[in-house]
């Protein structure tokens, strides 16, 4: 199980968190249809690092953006969610 450092609560067990989706799947409000479809239905899905949105569901309820390696599971960065952390 991962230890995830919630930006609001500090380090907590992964059991308190729920994975939501990847950052590249967030559809910008002014997206063209083709762009929206690509964002909704395709993923880079790298065998390496990617930015993911998780939620501290069973804790403070806050959203966060986590950069995590898909093989080693090493977390390299966690930020609270906000306009500056999303595309």
């Amino acid at each position, binding site marked *: 199980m991962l230890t995830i450092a919630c930006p609001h609560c500090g380090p907590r067990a*992964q*059991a308190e968190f729920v994975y939501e989706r990847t950052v590249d799947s967030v559809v910008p409000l002014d997206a063209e249809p083709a762009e929206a479809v690509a964002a909704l239905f395709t993923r880079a899905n790298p065998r390496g690092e990617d930015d993911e949105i998780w939620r501290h569901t069973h804790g403070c309820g806050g959203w966060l953006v986590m950069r995590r390696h898909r*093989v080693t599971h090493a977390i390299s960065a966690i930020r609270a969610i906000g306009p500056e952390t999303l595309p």
Partner: protein
Amino acid sequence: MGRYSALSLLRGAFNGQSHWRPAWRHPDPKPAYDVVIIGGGGHGLATAYYLATRHGIRNVAVLEKGYIGGGNTGRNTTIVRSNYRQEPLSRMYETSLKLWQTLSDELNYNVMFSPRGALFLGHSDADMIRLAEKGDAMRNQGIDAELLSVDQLRKIEPLLDFSRDARFPIEGGMIQWRGGTARHDAVAWGFARGADAAGVNIIQRCEVTGIVREGNRAVAVETTRGRIAAGTIAICVAGHSGHVAAMAGLKLPVESQTLQAMVTEGVKPMVQTVVMSQSLHCYINQSDKGGIVFGGDPDNWPSYAQRGQPMTLEGAVAQGLALMPSLSRLRMLRCWAGVTDMSFDGAPIIGPTPVDGLWLNGGWCYGGFKATPGSGWLFADSLAHGRPHEIVEPFSLHRFERGAPVDENGVGPMPNHR
């Protein structure tokens, strides 16, 4: 290739069984092939086998980065069934089930297909209505289904907890008697032996590191054993479709997640069928060796690690013990995990890609094993004729942008909510 038979065994008894030969060769890769299949799992090997034996396309290579059947083919819970509601899925999985029924004879290799019944339990009126609807849908498509009362169930699986205060009280069930299990390693080995005998080159420890394009056409693969040119390239690497397709510049409707399974020590026969549930996500069956095989939910977050987390295992075990309390005395021997391509509607992706000469067979979520022969049969037909087989047409890569997903569970584009 010598045929396996009781007679050859008997003959072997007189010469110390010295007649055994390796079941397939270990050739060096040639510089070019008509078809290069990436991925030496069940699907890739089955595709190669049917290409060579049914379509006369024998100049085929199967490239495997590790050893054949070492990926998801050897990491599933070995369940075979075709109990789906939606017609595209029913047709495909039923094609596969029919091939399973004669596969051991076809391959002259015992895949230990055991049609012991695939049972879904219902725990409420709502469950029973859904099971009845599903059973009706199946029977209308010519697939066997039988709705079971609690009394009938007691005779089939007496060790289930039928008490009224059970955590998941049992109201009935629905069974597909033609469903069951097969030995997963034997499926890979049997197809490999058959494909090799028909002239296919199976090249193990050969990882594809790049896909070479000329304009919009994929013409070759770069591998750890050099460049191999190909008329057609077929990706059969479910679990890893995302990053392999990315080598050709494609972004797929797939997220890779971990799916775990586990097995207990061997015991005498106690679970007759494959026990599943309409409301839970727990699979229980007993292997021919006697071990109780458990499967559960995916880990629900992206990973290529082939290792799962204990929370998910605990959830599957808790559900299994609630259904069949006597399992609590068993000791777990092993647990393992595979990487699954979770597609965005829960259905596979089979067909051409926007890159000419590059075909994809992936996105199998956690339903790939039972499809192995059917997937190979249909994919080989598609590759041989250069167009998707009619049965796999609904599983095109472009169904999402057309708004035509094959969404059996009605969950929408959320692989982690499936």
